[in-house]
C-alpha cells in the first residue's frame, strides 16, 4: 500500500520538532530585572562575596527573587526596575571599587530548562536599546611607532658594532640611515640584514640605506595592534559596568563594541576613546637645554614641556612604555602629596630594573602621551590625530626600580585618580576613532519588538485563514507545518550561540511566513493535477510529493546560496536578515516536505480513500 509512514520517519520528524520546540520554550518565560556582580582585576567572586551580598540586601530590606552564583559572577534577581536601581546602588557602595556592579535583564528560564542549555534568543540592540560603536585603529601611527623603535635600535647596534654612520632618521614608513662612505654602508647592510629579518634594506643612493618593514611583519604589527586594543577596550568596558558587552574584531582594522542598555553615551565614549599612554625616559644631562632651545637639539634627544610649561630635555630612547603596566592605583605619599602606584608585568619589571641599574642618582621623566583628534581629515578622509606629550613628573631614581614603583609630581588627587584609571584600563597602543555610532533608546527598542510581533501575528493569521479556505483539510496540514516552522525558527535561533534577533531579522521571519507555504502549495497543486489526470487519491499524493520534491530542492538551494553570500559579505542588519532567511529556508523545507508527509500519510495513507479534501 502506498503512503505508509515508516516508524523511523515519524520518529525523526517528532524528535527534531520536539527538540526545537523545547529550545524555543525559554522565549515565552520573559525576563527578570537583575543586578550582576563581576570581579575586578584584583578581586575574586567567592561564596564569601555571596554572603556579603546577601547581608547587604537583608540589611537594606531589599526584596529579592533569587541570588545566583555561577561562572564567577553573582546574579541578583528582583521583581521590578525600581528595586533593581536600589539594589545596584547599595551593592555598589558596599562592595567598593573591586567589583563591577551592572544592571541587567536575566532570562527567567526555569532551572531544568537552563540545565539543558536553554536560553531565549539574543536580541539585537535595535530591539532592546543600547549603544553600538564601530572603531578603527589608526595603523599609520602604529607602524610609525614600531619604526621609531627600530630607529633607536639601529643607533645602538651600529654603535656597538663600531660602524660609523652619519644619521638615522625615520620618515613616513621607512628609516633612512646615511653613512660617510660606501664601505661603512656595505658593512652595515651586511650586519643589519643578518640581525633583523623583520626589515628589508635597500640602498637608495651611494650613502643611504633605507629600511622598511617586511610585509609579514606589517601584518603582524597590525594584528597585534587590533588584538591588544580589543583587550584594552574590554577592560575599559568592564569599568562602565555593562552587562553582556560585546567587543569584537571586524575586518582588518576595526573593532565593534556593543553596550546593551547604556544610555549615557557621552560617558561611554569618554572612557572608550581615551587614548593615553605613559613612557619613561631618562633626562638628557649630557647636553645643555639652552642649546636645544636655540634649535640645536641633539639627535638622540627631544624637548618636551612639563605641566607648568617648562621645557625638559629628554633622551629619545624609551626605557619603558605603558603597555607593560598591569595595575595602577592612586594614593598619597609620605608627604601627603598625590601619587600613582604602578605595577608592571615581569617583562616590564626586567626592563625597568635593567635600565635603572646604571642610572641611580639620575633624573627620570614620566611622559604622558595622549592622542587628540584635531577634527581635521587627511586625504583619505581619516581623522587626523595629534600627539600631545607632556612631562608629568621628573624624579631622581633612588634605587634600582623593579616591577612596583610610584609616580609623583601630580597636581591633585583627582588627576592622580584619572591617571590611575587610564593606566589601569591599559593604554591603547594606537589611536582609535569611532567611525560609526548607533544608539537606540529603550522605548524604541520595546516598540520595535511589539510592532514586529504584531506584524508576524497579523501576517500569520491571514495566511492561515487563506490556506484553510483554499486547501480545506490539506490546508490544516499546511497550517500545522507553518506554525511548526515558526516554532522551529525560534528554537534554532535560540540554540545557535552567535545568532542575534534584529529588526531586519524579524522582518525576515515575517517574510518566511509568507514564503514557507510555497513548498506546500507546490505539492498540493501537483496532487490536484494528478487527481485531474484521473489518478487515484493514493497515487496522486504519492506522485504529488514525488514530483514536487526536486523543484522544491532546486528553488530552495538557490535561495539558500543567496542567503549564504549575504551572510559572508554583509554586516550588521544584513547578517541578521540572512541568518533568519537561511534558517527559515531549512526549516520550511523540513516542515513542508517531511512533517506534512508524516501527517498526510497518517490521515489518508494506507487505506481506501474515495475523495481528497483538497
Amino acid at each position, binding site marked *: 500500500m502506498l503512503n505508509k509512514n515508516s516508524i523511523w520517519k515519524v520518529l525523526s520528524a517528532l524528535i527534531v520538532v520536539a527538540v526545537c520546540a523545547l529550545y524555543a520554550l525559554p522565549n515565552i518565560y520573559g525576563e527578570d530585572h537583575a543586578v550582576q556582580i563581576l570581579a575586578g582585576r584584583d578581586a575574586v567572586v567567592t561564596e564569601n562575596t555571596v554572603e556579603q551580598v546577601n547581608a547587604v540586601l537583608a540589611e537594606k530590606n531589599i526584596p529579592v527573587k533569587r541570588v545566583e552564583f555561577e561562572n564567577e559572577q553573582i546574579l541578583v534577581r528582583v521583581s521590578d526596575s525600581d528595586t533593581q536601581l536600589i539594589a545596584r546602588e547599595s551593592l555598589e557602595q558596599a562592595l567598593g571599587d573591586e567589583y563591577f556592579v551592572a544592571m541587567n535583564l536575566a532570562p527567567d528560564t526555569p532551572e531544568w530548562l537552563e540545565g539543558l542549555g536553554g536560553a531565549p534568543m539574543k536580541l539585537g540592540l535595535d530591539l532592546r536599546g543600547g549603544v553600538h560603536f*564601530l572603531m578603527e585603529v589608526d595603523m599609520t601611527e602604529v607602524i610609525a611607532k614600531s619604526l621609531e623603535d627600530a630607529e633607536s635600535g639601529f643607533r645602538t647596534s651600529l654603535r656597538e658594532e663600531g660602524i660609523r654612520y652619519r644619521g638615522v632618521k625615520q620618515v613616513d614608513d621607512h628609516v633612512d640611515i646615511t653613512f660617510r662612505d660606501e664601505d661603512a654602508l656595505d658593512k652595515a647592510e651586511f650586519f643589519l640584514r643578518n640581525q633583523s629579518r623583520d626589515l628589508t634594506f635597500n640602498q637608495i643612493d651611494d650613502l643611504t640605506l633605507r629600511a622598511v618593514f617586511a610585509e609579514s611583519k606589517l601584518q603582524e604589527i597590525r594584528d597585534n595592534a587590533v588584538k591588544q586594543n580589543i583587550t584594552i577596550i574590554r577592560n575599559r568596558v568592564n569599568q562602565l559596568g555593562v552587562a553582556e558587552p560585546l567587543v569584537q574584531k571586524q575586518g582588518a582594522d576595526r573593532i565593534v563594541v556593543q553596550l546593551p542598555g547604556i544610555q549615557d*553615551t*557621552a560617558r561611554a565614549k569618554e572612557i572608550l576613546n581615551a587614548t593615553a599612554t605613559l613612557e619613561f625616559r631618562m633626562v638628557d644631562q649630557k647636553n645643555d637645554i639652552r642649546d636645544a632651545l636655540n634649535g640645536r637639539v641633539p639627535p638622540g634627544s627631544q624637548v618636551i614641556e612639563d605641566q607648568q610649561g617648562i621645557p625638559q630635555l629628554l633622551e629619545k630612547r624609551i626605557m619603558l612604555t605603558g603597555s607593560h603596566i598591569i595595575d595602577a592605583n592612586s594614593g598619597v605619599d609620605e608627604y601627603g602629596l598625590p601619587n600613582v602606584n604602578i605595577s608592571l608585568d615581569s617583562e616590564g619589571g626586567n626592563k625597568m630594573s635593567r635600565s635603572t641599574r646604571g642610572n641611580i642618582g639620575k633624573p627620570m621623566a614620566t611622559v604622558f602621551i595622549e592622542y587628540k*583628534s584635531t*577634527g*581635521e581629515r587627511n586625504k583619505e578622509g*581619516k581623522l587626523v590625530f595629534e600627539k600631545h606629550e607632556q612631562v608629568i613628573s621628573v624624579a631622581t631614581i633612588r634605587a634600582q626600580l623593579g616591577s612596583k614603583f610610584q609616580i609623583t609630581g601630580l597636581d591633585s588627587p583627582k588627576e592622580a585618580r584619572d591617571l590611575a584609571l587610564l593606566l589601569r584600563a591599559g593604554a591603547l597602543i594606537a589611536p582609535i576613532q*569611532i*567611525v560609526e*555610532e*548607533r*544608539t537606540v*533608546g529603550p*522605548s*524604541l527598542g520595546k516598540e*520595535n519588538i511589539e*510592532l*514586529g510581533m*504584531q*506584524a508576524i501575528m497579523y*501576517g*500569520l493569521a*491571514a495566511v492561515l485563514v*487563506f490556506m484553510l479556505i*483554499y486547501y480545506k483539510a490539506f490546508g490544516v496540514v499546511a497550517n500545522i507545518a507553518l506554525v511548526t516552522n515558526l516554532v522551529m525558527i525560534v528554537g534554532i535561533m535560540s540554540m545557535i550561540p552567535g545568532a542575534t534577533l534584529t*529588526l*531586519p531579522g524579524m*522582518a*525576515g521571519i*515575517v*517574510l518566511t*511566513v*509568507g514564503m514557507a*507555504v*510555497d513548498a506546500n*502549495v507546490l505539492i498540493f*497543486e501537483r496532487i490536484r493535477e494528478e487527481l485531474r489526470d484521473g489518478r487515484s487519491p493514493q497515487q496522486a499524493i504519492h506522485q504529488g*510529493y*514525488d*514530483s514536487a*520534491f526536486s*523543484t522544491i*530542492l532546486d*528553488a530552495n538551494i*538557490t*535561495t539558500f*546560496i*543567496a*542567503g549564504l*553570500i*549575504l551572510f559572508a*559579505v*554583509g554586516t550588521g*542588519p*544584513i547578517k541578521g*536578515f*540572512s541568518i533568519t532567511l537561511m534558517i527559515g529556508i531549512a526549516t520550511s523545507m523540513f516542515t513542508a*516536505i*517531511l512533517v506534512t*508527509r508524516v501527517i498526510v500519510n497518517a490521515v489518508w495513507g494506507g487505506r481506501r480513500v474515495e475523495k481528497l479534501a483538497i
Partner: protein
Amino acid sequence: MQLLKLSDTVNFMRLRIPAMVLSTVLILGSFVSLGVNSLNWGLDFTGGTLIEVGYEDAANLEAIRVQLNESNFEDAIVQNFGSSQDVLIRIAPRDGVKAVTIGEQVLAALRADGTSVDMRRIEFVGPNVGEELTEQGGLAMLVALLCILVYVAMRFEWRFALGSVSALMHDVILTLGLFSVLQIEFDLTVLAAVLAVIGYSLNDTIVVSDRIRENFRKIRKGEPVEIINISLTQTLNRTIITSLTTVLVLVALFYKGGALIHGFATALLFGVVVGTYSSVYIASSVALALGISKEDLMPPQVEKEGADLDPMP
C-alpha cells in the same frame, strides 16, 4: 476551491514581444531616473548623523528648525517620522566638528528651553564606512548573481541560467528605479530587502524553469513556445497563490511593522509583484530567445535506468 480553472493552455508567450518592450522601457526608465535623481541614499551609505526624538505632544517642526539654526546646525533636515510626535533630524557629515558628539549637541539644543525630549535613537556613520558599504553591497549582489548563474547552469542549462539571472537583474533594477523615482530613503534594511527580492524572484523562476524542463522531456511533440505555455499554465496557480500569501504578510508588515521597516516592506511588496511577472515573462522569454530546444534538456544518457531520478523525500 480553485483560483483559476484553466481548461485550455494560456498563450502567455503571445505577449512576449510587448512584455519585452515594456520591460525594456521600464529598465531604461529606471536607469534614467537613477542617472538623474540617483537614489535617496540613507545614512548608512552617505555618512552623517541622524537623530530621532520623541515629543510628548505634536512637535513644532518650525520651532525645532529655529532652535537648531541657533546652535549652528543650519544644514539640518527636520521631518516627522511615523507620527506627529516623532521627529527625525539629519545632519550631513562635516569637517572641523567632532562628528560623534553632534548627536548630544543636538539633543542639548532641543532641551535647552526645558522641553522634555525623549531620545529614541542616534546614529552616526563616518563617510568611509558608507563608501565601503556601497562597495560591499554591490559586491554582495554581484557575487550572489554569479553563484546563482553557476548553480542554475549546472543543474539546468546555460540558457535557463542566463534567463533567470536576467529576470533577477530586471527585478533589482526596477526596484532600485522605483526607489529612485519615489525618492524613498535607501538604507541598509532596504538593501537587505532588495537581496530578498533576488531570493524570492529566483524561487519563482526556478519553479517555472523546472516545469519547462520536465515538460520538454515528457511531451515528445510540440514547439518550444507551446511547451513553455503549457508549463506556465500549469504553474500559474502556484505562482499566484505563493505571491498572494507573501503579499498578505508584507501588507501586514507595511501597516503594522513600524516606520523603521517601511522601506523594507515597500521594496519587497514591489519586488514580489515584479518578480512574479518576470518569472513568467523575462526568464522564459530570454531562454526562448537564446534558442532553447528539446535536445538541450533531454536527460544525459545513463546506463542504468532510473539512476538520475531524485530520491524519495
